[in-house]
């Protein structure tokens, strides 16, 4: 599926996740965050960076991973990305939605 975000045409799946990370920019991340009523701050970007690095390293994302990340604790994570933190933050980060149940 094609979608225009921040004046750029990108490929997304039916849930709105980018299917090609090379198309991702910070502007696109900001725009997706806005769609979820999230105003990006430095703390948000820190989490997004961490997520992108982990995905790049091939590590499966989980809530326990967030706890151990050293970047953020779980309470802050829920506060920064309301309505399903891992789901929302991965969408902003332009990486696939995590498939794990934990």
């Amino acid at each position, binding site marked *: 599926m094609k979608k225009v975000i921040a004046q750029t045409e990108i490929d997304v799946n039916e849930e709105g996740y980018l299917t090609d990370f090379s198309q991702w920019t910070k502007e696109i991340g900001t725009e997706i965050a806005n769609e979820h009523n999230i105003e990006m701050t430095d703390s948000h970007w820190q989490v997004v960076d961490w997520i992108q690095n982990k995905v790049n390293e091939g590590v*499966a994302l*989980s*809530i*326990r*991973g967030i*706890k151990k990340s050293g970047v953020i*604790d*779980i*309470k802050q994570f*829920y506060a920064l990305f*309301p*309505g*399903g*933190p*891992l*789901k929302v933050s991965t969408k902003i980060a332009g990486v696939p939605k995590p498939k*794990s*149940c*934990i």
Partner: protein
Amino acid sequence: MGTKVKKMMFILSKANIDNAYAAFIMANGARMEGIEAEIFFTFFGLEAIQKKKMDHLHVATVGNPAMHMPTMIGGLPGMEALATKMMKKEMEKLDMPPVSEFIEILSDSGCKLWACKLAYEMFHLKEDDLIDELDGILTVGDFYNRADQDGCQIVFI
């Protein structure tokens, strides 16, 4: 689009490790989807929120057909400990946290954790016996009253 479930409310009544994890994983899964979650620990389920017992829950080797072993073998000394050890090893491989850490994750995620008043009294427990993350001790009626909106689901485990 999207789920109509707004709040998942679990009643954990057993202390088998598989039952406890079913409740924890489903409650955590709800929070991860932006759904509210609560767990009411009653009867043997209270073991999962007792500081001294929570990390020593077992898988049942007797009376558990899924173990695929004769009941008499399951009853041999050490069998339950062995099966539990093996299961915990597999769970660790999937990055499933131990019970105490899972409780911490759930609490930090905003999942409410309640102890059943009747069972708490029946087992002569003290507040000190229970986890620090506990949100309170409730009666059944209190718990039902927390199902205060459309889209609440109550699941007995």
